[in-house]
């Protein structure tokens, strides 16, 4: 049985690997480590979260990443029998949320070029696929980047993770991005967590920012609820019936609350949003996917079982994501063992293959 892993966090050994893809003027602006006394000289580039993993130097950053293709193949793809791995970035996911939008444009272009050269070009087996980082704060530039990098058939999705303009992803300001992605046959891969960075203009949780990692872990799905409801209410799915949206970073248990509320109130909302023609549950299997990780969902126990029984549509929605190289990354079997019988093939491969551009 084939397996598609929708969540492999790839990163760099040294940020210079990405910076070499910047135009010279921007490269001069961002500087070089060691070009000033005391080892200084590089501007802080990657927004960090206040709840990052333990690091070697105490600096804020993001979770663990795998930093070369050979290690990924040897340590994960081959032993796990992964046929396709989606390279979903580590810290670079948050480049779109940089305070300086012009710098953000330059850096995401550089990061895309780095992924193509350092990873995809170095993968003779063709098992790795990239996601396109876009400068969300400048939607016209983002659309341009989608069309430019989207011409590379090895790019499987457009990543939205920064929420740089402080609006959920169905907002009309993002329509150039929706249009470009739909035109290129690329799904939107919406990743929660980018709004937890210091630079972000949005909060990762409703009611105020969390103070502890414990809160963020528990509430990681909230942003996905906002984005999903926004896409539905703004008619994004109706405007682009071929567009797929993949929601990641917050597990799957958040879905029931927002889906139920939207479905139940669907007929009441027509006068305000007449473009919301279908009940959200009707468009789920056609246009929505959710990345579920074994670490998150496999331990959900009765809650996961109950959700799957109440929303059988999830069988055609869930996609496996390992979160490699996180310490608790696991193979697909640990996830599918926690789901109803008969779901494995869809979760392991089918749902991802029908959404990603592979």
């Amino acid at each position, binding site marked *: 049985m084939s397996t598609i892993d929708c969540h492999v966090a790839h990163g760099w050994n040294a940020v210079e690997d990405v910076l070499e893809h910047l135009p010279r003027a921007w490269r001069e602006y961002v500087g070089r480590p060691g070009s000033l006394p005391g080892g200084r000289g590089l501007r802080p580039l990657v927004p960090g979260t206040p709840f990052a993993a333990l690091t070697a130097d105490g600096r804020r950053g993001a979770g663990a990443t795998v930093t070369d293709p050979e290690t990924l193949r040897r340590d994960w793809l081959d032993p796990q029998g992964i046929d396709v791995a989606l390279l979903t970035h580590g810290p670079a996911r948050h480049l779109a949320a940089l305070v300086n939008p012009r710098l953000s444009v330059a850096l995401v272009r550089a990061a895309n070029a780095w992924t193509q050269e350092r990873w995809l070009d170095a993968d003779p087996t063709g098992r790795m696929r990239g996601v396109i980082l876009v400068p969300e704060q400048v939607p016209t530039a983002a659309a341009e980047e989608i069309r430019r990098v989207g011409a590379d058939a090895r790019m499987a999705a457009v990543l939205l993770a920064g929420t740089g303009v402080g609006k959920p992803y169905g907002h009309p300001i993002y329509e150039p991005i929706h249009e470009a992605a739909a035109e290129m046959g690329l799904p939107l891969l919406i990743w929660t967590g980018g709004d937890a960075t210091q630079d972000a203009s949005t909060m990762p949780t409703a009611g105020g920012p969390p103070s502890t990692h414990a809160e963020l872990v528990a509430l990681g799905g909230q942003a996905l609820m906002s984005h999903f409801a926004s896409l539905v209410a703004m*008619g994004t799915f*109706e405007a682009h019936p071929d567009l797929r949206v993949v929601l990641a970073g917050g597990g799957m248990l958040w879905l029931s609350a927002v889906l139920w509320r939207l479905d139940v109130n669907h*007929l*009441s909302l*027509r*006068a*305000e949003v*007449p473009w919301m023609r279908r009940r959200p549950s009707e468009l789920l299997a056609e246009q929505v996917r959710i990345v579920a990780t074994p670490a998150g969902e496999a331990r959900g126990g009765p809650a996961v079982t109950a959700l799957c029984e109440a929303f059988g549509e999830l069988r055609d929605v869930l996609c496996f994501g390992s979160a490699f190289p996180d310490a608790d990354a696991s193979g697909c079997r640990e996830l599918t063992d926690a789901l109803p019988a008969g779901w494995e093939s869809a979760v392991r491969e089918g749902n991802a293959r029908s959404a990603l551009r592979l």
Partner: protein
Amino acid sequence: MIDVVARDELREGEFTVVRAGRREVGIVLWRGEVHALANRCPHMGAPVCRGRVTPLVDEALPRAALRCAGDDAVLSCPWHGWEFRIDSGVAVADSHYRLRRYRAEVRDGRVLVELGG
């Protein structure tokens, strides 16, 4: 048929709720015709005829703006906003739902309603 209200008491586009037997019925004059609809929303049983009669709204451009769709009007339930076409009782957002309609006629200045079975 049950005599429920004087024709002259009706205002165009405004529902008058009357009791006919054991039922509440909303009577409305619309485009010169009298319509009778059950005063009970199929959603959650709200007194739907206490709601507003509003123009039917749809989208002017795809997702861009709202506009009034010609001369059509709907009854909007006061509890949750479900909309029903006045001339048919059919719910706008989902034609599987409808308000029960009764036959109504005007005779000698009085509105009569047939409740049926």
